[in-house]
């Protein structure tokens, strides 16, 4: 029997979700064809901002990979824009000539960004912010740094501004209204947000009306109506969106602002449905995913014969700018029939305002602390009377006692299919089942296994409530995460107490801080050992048995129990005599593999443990020291050829890299530390994804930090610009010491920086001379004991027992 043909125009988030629901409910019911004007699969459009800022890559935001289409037998025409619908013949035709007939058609064309038709709006360099192509164009221009002007300080405009700033551009936002994000924020919250963005280096001009875009062959700037002229290499227009309804209109389907649909998402033509931002339901066009997903579920139901109805949605907004917490929902205008509750905490930068009407929350604006957003939103959506908790309402959910008011009761009452995480479409049942089946106890685990709250994070509160319902007292969201099972204290507390109580040995720490085990475990012992080495460099003796094997034998253990050996090649430089020595060692010890590492040096793999001291002895004769490829300490300083050879080099990047490596190897750090020095912004040493990086420029050295290119990928942050090599070294050393003193064991710099705050780090290192020098001196002190080549120490006999068996039995003889 031939199946009914379902054709979908547009491959965005709304139809993606609808098809997921449809395939779950009625797999194989339809023969599905999708047309997508974009040349790609379905991706998470709301995550474009993290892609623009460099915090995520396109691959991270794909919703349906190629497999998904294949597995569900969906035909996807990529880069195929539908140009016409023939409702009589029941066919659609794309610009590339493909014509397909349908039994049922879903129009899901999304929105078009609105471009203000001022003079110059068609110049190259004037961009919208809607899809991946736009992001790629922005990133392309941002490569040359330069200036960006963003028109419109709404959600999209501000996210674009933040992303471009992160890409190193000089960014100005111009906004027509007196306050920013005026549709979502009241003036008080808008003020705080504007201040926070300004502190991040984004210029904001309000009450600014654009008169023209200037430029001859491409954008050069913007002229405002008050006569001001702003220079810019790029203009991003983020002033609003219009439902993409032209196609439907031409086909004679009823269109108002959007394509008019009923509660079953059906248009004026009973074979045609509209879904997503292009649709208009009861006079409203939505521009956020949550309501679209609600209607997607209804449409899926209808397509398999159900009678689901969509009743409209209340929406909330979050701004995805790292480090800024903002939540807004509902209606917060003032009025005689309304009351408001406001909480301000100036030092903490917190502002919360709830608007009540008839004893129910109708609006909420939260700035600085947004954890309770979902809870307020839930109370608002369900129109719960708040009389009894009015006094403590503003303090949030955790202040609500008593059974009747237990907000968990509401969550507990939700049906299993209630959606908790809108971004990833995870329902309550799935979360609860996974928690029980897998025995999950932490939020991170739940995120890892279910993806719930792993995207924008706005449902974190709900997920925590579910965990609390499922796990009972075993779950306490406010608890500090203990270091390990041996203590209830977290890393920060332990570090603080070691200093406060002057604890100088592992047993002293365990005794004073009431460890629950007699001698710790493989998690806490290495951490304590590090904290003590760092805090008491000249007094504490390293506890050898609390080190991971690699650090005990100064080589990396391999899967078969053999070891690999990586000598230092300072700044990636080597010579014929070094290479010859390596070749000789490889031959002599029959080392099975030699590899150039990702860290600009050479790895010899598969060495027997017993051979290590002899290998090191030979390498030592050629002048090699341990590359500490195993250390929680300085690993490599990658360099490029710089002024020595390169026609673009602005400074001696190789020399600086070598100098840093020679100065800084030795002292242990909380986690491994990798650096890079590039001779110019072309950045061939990849310095902008390192823990610490330097980009040499004509005027000096731009110091970067907090990059990541391992489990997470993240571009660096700029610490600041210094003029001389000496200063560069001093600032880098100080930064490293600050991290050494504050980082949690195994916490890379980017995670520590996130916890500590970039601005605080910049302040202490760049502007507080006394602090900086203090850090520098303490590092130098620590180096006195730490800068001893571990290989030569062992060649001269240290830890001999490690490399030899205790005895070899002649069993044949004994038996």
């Amino acid at each position: 029997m031939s199946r009914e043909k379902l054709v979908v125009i547009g491959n965005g988030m709304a139809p993606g979700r609808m098809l997921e629901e449809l395939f779950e409910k009625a797999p194989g019911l339809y023969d599905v064809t999708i047309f997508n004007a974009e040349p790609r699969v379905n991706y998470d459009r709301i995550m474009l901002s993290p892609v623009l800022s460099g915090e995520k890559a396109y691959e991270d935001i794909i919703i349906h990979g190629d497999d998904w289409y294949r597995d569900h037998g969906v035909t996807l025409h990529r880069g195929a824009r539908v140009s016409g619908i023939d409702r009589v013949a029941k066919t659609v035709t794309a610009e590339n000539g493909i014509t397909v007939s349908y039994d049922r058609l879903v129009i899901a064309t999304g929105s078009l960004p609105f471009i203000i038709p001022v003079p110059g709006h068609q110049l190259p360099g004037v961009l919208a912010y809607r899809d991946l192509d736009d992001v790629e164009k922005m990133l392309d221009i941002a490569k040359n740094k330069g200036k960006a002007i963003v028109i419109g300080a709404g959600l999209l405009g501000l996210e674009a501004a933040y992303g471009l700033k992160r890409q190193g551009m000089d960014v100005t936002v111009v906004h027509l209204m007196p306050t920013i994000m005026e549709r979502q924020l009241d003036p008080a919250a808008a003020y705080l947000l504007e201040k926070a963005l300004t502190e991040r280096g984004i210029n904001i001009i309000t009450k600014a009306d654009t008169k023209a875009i200037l430029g001859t062959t491409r954008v050069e700037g913007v002229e405002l109506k008050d006569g001001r002229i702003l220079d810019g290499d790029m203009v991003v227009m983020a002033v609003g969106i219009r439902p993409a309804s032209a196609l439907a209109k031409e086909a004679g389907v009823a269109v108002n602002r959007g394509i008019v649909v009923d509660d079953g998402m059906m248009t004026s033509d009973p074979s045609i449905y509209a879904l997503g931002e292009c649709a208009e339901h009861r006079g409203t066009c939505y521009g956020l995913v949550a309501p679209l997903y609600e209607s997607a579920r209804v449409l899926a139901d209808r397509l398999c014969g159900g009678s689901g109805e969509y009743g409209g949605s209340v929406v909330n907004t979050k701004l995805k700018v790292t480090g800024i917490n903002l939540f807004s929902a509902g209606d917060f205008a003032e009025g005689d029939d309304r009351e408001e509750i406001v909480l301000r905490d100036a030092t903490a930068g917190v502002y919360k305002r709830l608007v009540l009407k008839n004893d129910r929350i109708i609006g909420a604006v939260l700035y600085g602390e947004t954890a309770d957003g979902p809870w307020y939103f839930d109370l608002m959506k369900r129109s719960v009377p708040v009389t009894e908790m009015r006094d403590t309402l503003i303090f949030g959910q955790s202040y609500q006692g008593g059974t009747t008011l237990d907000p968990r009761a509401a969550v507990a009452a939700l049906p299993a299919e209630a959606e908790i995480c809108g971004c990833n479409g995870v329902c309550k049942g799935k979360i609860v089942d996974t928690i029980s089946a897998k025995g999950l106890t932490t939020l991170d685990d739940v995120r890892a296994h279910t993806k719930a709250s792993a995207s924008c994070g706005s449902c974190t509160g709900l997920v925590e409530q579910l965990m609390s319902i499922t796990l009972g007292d075993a779950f306490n969201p406010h608890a500090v995460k203990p270091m390990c099972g041996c203590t209830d204290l977290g890393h920060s507390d332990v570090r603080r107490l070691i200093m406060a109580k002057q604890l100088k040995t592992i047993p002293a720490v365990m005794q004073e801080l009431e460890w629950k085990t007699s001698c710790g475990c493989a998690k806490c012992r290495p951490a304590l050992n590090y904290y003590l080495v760092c805090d008491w460099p000249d007094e504490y003796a390293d506890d050898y048995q609390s080190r991971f094997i690699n650090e005990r034998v100064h080589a990396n253990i391999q899967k078969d129990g053999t070891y690999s050996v990586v000598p230092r090649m300072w700044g990636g430089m080597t010579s014929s005599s070094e290479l010859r020595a390596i070749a000789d060692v490889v031959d002599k010890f029959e080392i099975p593999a030699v590899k150039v590492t990702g860290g600009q040096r050479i790895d010899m793999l598969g060495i027997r443990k017993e051979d290590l001291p002899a290998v090191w002895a030979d390498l030592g004769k050629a002048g090699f020291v341990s590359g500490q490829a195993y250390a929680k300490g300085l690993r490599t300083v990658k360099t490029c050829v710089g002024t020595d050879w390169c026609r673009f080099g602005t400074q001696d990047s190789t020399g600086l890299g070598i100098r840093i490596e020679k100065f800084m190897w030795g002292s242990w750090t909380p986690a491994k530390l990798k650096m890079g020095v590039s001779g110019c912004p072309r950045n061939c040493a990849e310095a902008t994804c390192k823990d610490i990086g330097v980009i040499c420029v004509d005027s000096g050295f731009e110091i970067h930090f907090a990059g990541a290119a391992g489990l997470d990928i993240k571009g660096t942050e700029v610490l600041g610009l210094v003029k001389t090599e000496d200063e560069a070294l001093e600032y880098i050393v100080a930064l490293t010491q600050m991290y050494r003193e504050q980082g949690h064991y195994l916490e890379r710099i980017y995670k520590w920086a996130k916890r500590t705050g970039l601005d605080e780090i910049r302040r202490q290192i760049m502007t507080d001379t006394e602090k900086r020098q203090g850090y520098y001196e303490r590092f130098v002190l620590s180096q006195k004991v730490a800068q001893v080549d571990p290989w030569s120490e062992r060649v001269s006999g240290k830890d001999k027992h490690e490399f030899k068996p205790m005895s070899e039995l002649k069993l044949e003889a004994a038996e």
Partner: protein
Amino acid sequence: MNTHMKSWFDVGSISDIPRRGARCVKTGTMTVAVFRTADDKVFALEDKCPHRNGPLSQGIVHDGCVTCPLHNWVISLETGRAQGADEGATLSFPVRLEGIASSCR
């Protein structure tokens, strides 16, 4: 394996093994890891993690267990059995202290 089939072997002195550490004994057919705990108890296990044969002698010793250096399974020194959610066991051998550490096979 009956007890009378076994005999004791002198493998060395307890002072050869670092506290919370291990040394290896090679038997010709296998490697045995001899562990010494913080309170000077001595245990012997085949130097082979039940997970993927990691050398347990290279792990961190804590209380009565060793954490395997390859993927962090925790193995009981006394029974050789994996702790927690992991399943599996490695061979364990009785050890006798007579001022010296002995292991038996």
